[in-house]
């Protein structure tokens, strides 16, 4: 069965960019348009292995989505963002994130990180 990845980003281009890369490698992709939608998609897709989550989003930012997913999120979280501020990375780690990618990224590096974290 194909591995499912939830992509949360308020930019449709950023979601599409990740989806094309992941679908091309055989992953099933579920898209969420902001943090709140992301939490709903996470609840609706308990079989997803990984969440790619932007940080700077309206309604709920990525750290808030991560925190709302509980102390030990069922899915691995890989934060994908333009942010590189150490305090934000520490917060994400504290809430259980497994990785951090600074945008813009090379597609092959995203894929390598996803393969490693999605199992």
């Amino acid at each position: 069965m194909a591995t499912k990845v939830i992509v949360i980003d308020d930019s449709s281009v950023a979601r599409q960019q990740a989806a094309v890369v992941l679908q091309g490698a055989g992953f099933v992709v579920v898209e969420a348009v902001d943090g709140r939608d992301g939490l709903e998609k996470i609840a609706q897709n308990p079989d997803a292995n990984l969440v790619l989550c932007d940080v700077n989003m309206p309604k709920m930012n990525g750290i808030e989505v991560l925190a709302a997913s509980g102390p030990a999120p069922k899915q691995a979280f890989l934060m994908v963002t333009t942010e590189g501020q150490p305090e934000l990375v520490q917060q994400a780690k504290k809430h259980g994130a497994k990785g951090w990618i600074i945008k813009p990224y090379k597609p092959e590096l995203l894929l390598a990180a996803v393969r490693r974290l999605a199992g």
Partner: protein
Amino acid sequence: MDADAWRRVNDMVIECTLATLQGTGVAVTEARESRQLESELSNVAVMGFAGFHMRGAVLLATSDELLMRTFPRPAAEGGADRDALLDWSGELLNHLMGRIKAELGMHGILIEPGTPTTISGVGVRVGAATRNAHCTPHRFQVDGDAFLVRFEALERPGAELSEQADHSRTVGGPGDVLLF
């Protein structure tokens, strides 16, 4: 901040813009002439920022052609319609803001960006800056396609731009991957 510090901020904005556009695979240069661009610009993305030391906004005004040239390759397979181009102008500004935030942060100025707002139109004219704000429009070009970046900011008294970059203020740059 004195005039020299603001000159350095402007240099950072120029360097960050060049790096952001180069990252999309195009050859970009700063345009020295100050010709009017209004007739060529049809997309504007604006992102505000706040912080203890400084608050303001960054504006990116582009043509459709420039957005199509820089549109991410993998996503382009799905086509780039008007909404996608406008979304891309916001994401491109997001990439630029990420670099500016990191550069300012390494020099002691901490800012928190908002989310981008995008507008499209015909012959877009960029208006005057907020009163008392430090503001310099920077013009660039990619093979004749001109675009504009404007960094507009108000500083708090006592804000200082440090001479030396403190690289511990960022975990890395664009493209870096950290696995925990």
